[in-house]
């Protein structure tokens, strides 16, 4: 279904559509006029590839659609297509993403601005289709820029922003957009789909410049450098990641200018944090139950707020330290695990703790591991986190640093 939207200022130039997160990404890819895309089936991300296939067969998009024989090839094929100047898209889920790991390692090192979708899924074994964030988090140390989204609209918008950021010559790094399996990949919502002419005002063509592999530019790419040069090259990658703080903020600002919507703060969404005593944190679609629970708790006079992290790499540690400075206690809900980590916390809790280490105000921080394997994060779970956070706030310290919630005993 499509109806004209009333929204200003780009009213005429956007249509509303009822589409899933995966379909929203496919709309964005069509608008971005991608050149090469590689598919391989694994739930739940593969819905995006099905949507792109329909775009191509329906004549909405001209692109090479290659069905690979495994995720390793899937990612290698687009990596190479990108080096000759093609705008590319790829994606995977769970162990599929793991199967591509070698290629995920080299992609940022080669400064390939691929955009990938991770339909977050629990890793094997045992089998589970449901969401966990450990898959995308594999690559957190490698130069991939990582973000999490929680709605179809954010899926579409972030995909356009991702190409803009990744292909910025100051960056030239791949970006993985994480969408919670089932909760977002398969759930439909009304989404504003902009016109191509509007998108063209925001997203310039991809130019690889002097890094383009072409007979007119006979370069040798990725020779053996050994100890002579590796550390300098790693530092260049690190510098690009640091520049991403600026480039991402520029991109969001420009997005707001062109489309007349989008968040002021790219890094995280703040929900009722203004006066919050307790700030809960997390990534992805758990924002929905947490927001509902917060509204209920507010009715009972409990001042609880949410920070939903969008960008995990680069990690907005300074912005977070500022946003968390008034909280009396922080509860981080991880939809991931990190066995043997400090305090046994999940990955996000560990990162937030590290981000606050040098902060003036360090409220008690409690990690919660919840909703693994696609289990629902319930309102009861969220009430529990707030309750534990309130106790810690009163005591001024944490009794336990990490809790597993919603687990059958």
């Amino acid at each position, binding site marked *: 279904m499509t109806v004209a939207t009333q929204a200003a200022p780009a009213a005429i130039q956007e249509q509303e559509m009822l589409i899933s997160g995966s379909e929203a990404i496919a709309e964005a890819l069509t608008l971005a006029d991608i050149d090469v895309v590689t598919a391989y089936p694994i739930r739940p991300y593969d819905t995006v590839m099905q949507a792109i296939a329909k775009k191509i067969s329906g004549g909405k998009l001209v692109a090479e659609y290659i069905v690979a024989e495994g995720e390793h*090839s899937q990612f290698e094929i687009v990596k*190479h297509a990108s080096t000759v100047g093609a705008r590319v898209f790829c994606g995977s889920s769970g162990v599929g993403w793991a199967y591509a790991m070698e290629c995920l390692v080299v992609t940022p090192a080669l400064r390939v601005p691929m955009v990938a979708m991770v339909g977050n899924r629990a890793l094997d074994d045992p089998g589970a289709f449901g969401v966990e964030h450990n898959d995308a988090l594999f690559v957190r140390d490698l130069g991939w820029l990582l973000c999490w989204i929680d709605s179809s609209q954010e899926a579409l918008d972030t995909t356009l922003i991702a190409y803009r950021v990744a292909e910025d010559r100051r960056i030239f790094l791949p970006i993985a957009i994480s969408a919670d399996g089932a909760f977002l990949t398969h759930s439909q919502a009304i989404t504003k789909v902009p016109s191509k002419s509007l998108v063209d005002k925001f997203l310039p063509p991809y130019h690889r410049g002097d890094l383009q592999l*072409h007979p007119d530019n006979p370069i*040798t790419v990725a020779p053996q450098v050994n100890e002579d040069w590796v550390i300098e090259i790693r530092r260049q990658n690190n510098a690009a990641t640091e520049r991403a703080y600026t480039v991402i903020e520029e991109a969001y600002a420009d997005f707001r200018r062109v489309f007349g919507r989008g968040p002021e703060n790219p890094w995280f969404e703040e929900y009722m944090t203004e006066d919050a005593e307790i700030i809960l944190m997390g990534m992805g679609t758990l924002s929905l139950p947490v927001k509902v629970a917060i509204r209920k708790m507010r009715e009972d006079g409990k001042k609880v707020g949410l920070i939903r992290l969008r960008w995990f790499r680069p990690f907005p540690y300074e912005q977070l330290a500022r946003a968390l400075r008034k909280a009396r206690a922080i509860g981080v809900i991880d939809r991931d695990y990190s066995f043997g980590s400090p305090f046994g916390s999940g990955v996000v809790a560990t990162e937030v703790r590290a981000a606050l280490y040098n902060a003036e105000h360090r409220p008690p921080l409690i990690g919660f591991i919840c909703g693994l394997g696609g289990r629902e994060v319930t309102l009861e779970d969220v009430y529990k986190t707030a309750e534990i956070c309130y106790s810690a706030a009163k005591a001024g310290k944490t009794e336990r640093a990490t809790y597993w919630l919603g687990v059958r005993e």
Partner: protein
Amino acid sequence: MAEIATFSNATQVLEPFKGVKKVTIEEYFSSGHRTCQGCESALVMKLMVKAAGPRTIVLGSTGCMYVANTTYYSTPWVVPWMHTQLGSSGSAALGTAAGLKALMKKGKMKAEPINVIAFCGDGGGADMGLGAISATLTHKEYNSLILLYDNESYANTDIQLSGSTPYGAHTTFSPPGKARRIMHTRWKKNTAGMLAAGHPECRYVATVCASYAVEMMNKVRKALSIGGPTFIHSLDPCPKGWDYDPMLSHELGELAIECGIFPLYEVEEGVVKYYGKTKAIVDGRPRKPVREYLLKQGRFAHFIEEDLEYFQGKVDEMWTKWELPGVACFKKDGARAVAG
């Protein structure tokens, strides 16, 4: 963006060199590499890209021809070159060709036929990357050549056996010892034959040996001209891995063919054509005994008579029992009965 109506996906027309004196002078694989003395694979690189010409992109998967060739600041590649992962020669060829095709088709890049060649060693090609090569050979709409330089071991990492190492060879993973003289008991994988047999729409598969340089270059030119994905398997004697005097590289290549161990052929549009001394063998000329080849190499120095006989027997089978001699190991009906 719409498709450009005039885009044709054509390949370059590379006519065969009519004799060694007609071969072009220009080199596109030049000084700057650090391969061993007598390295046949370095010669294969040089001939491969000489045959292809300047409008070529070369992708190289991990292996000797990556590590020894492209030390930073001293690349020998005159044409654009890029590393790809060990098992990725197929994907590199496919991705590069698809990227070029998409950009040209959509008018984002000037349309012209650009050769895409991805090379791999036997470890990268016959072992780890076989699946990706197989996949690429089914994508008939992308023009590329995958060249496997087979020096019959993981020669860059200290000579470990691969699926392409001959039976019984001494490698660092198969050292002959008192308890076990033969550690490597597997027969060499028939990579070219398998790829030709398994990919009905792949228009060209060939075997080559740089001992026969003009033939080798002409097969590369045909592979690049014919269109779609193609595959060439090159047997490359390796002084370090095979343990022989570097001056014997060419001679060993010739012997491998004369003994019938490595047949020279092409499969063009499904039609098998034998070349040179292999053709003579198929026509009935006697093969040289394999011992003439094996005993010139240190990697077979531990062989006793029994091992030589076993090896000879297996090679004999290729010519007497295979339905397509030297190419495909389907046996003739009578042969199966004989084999019991």
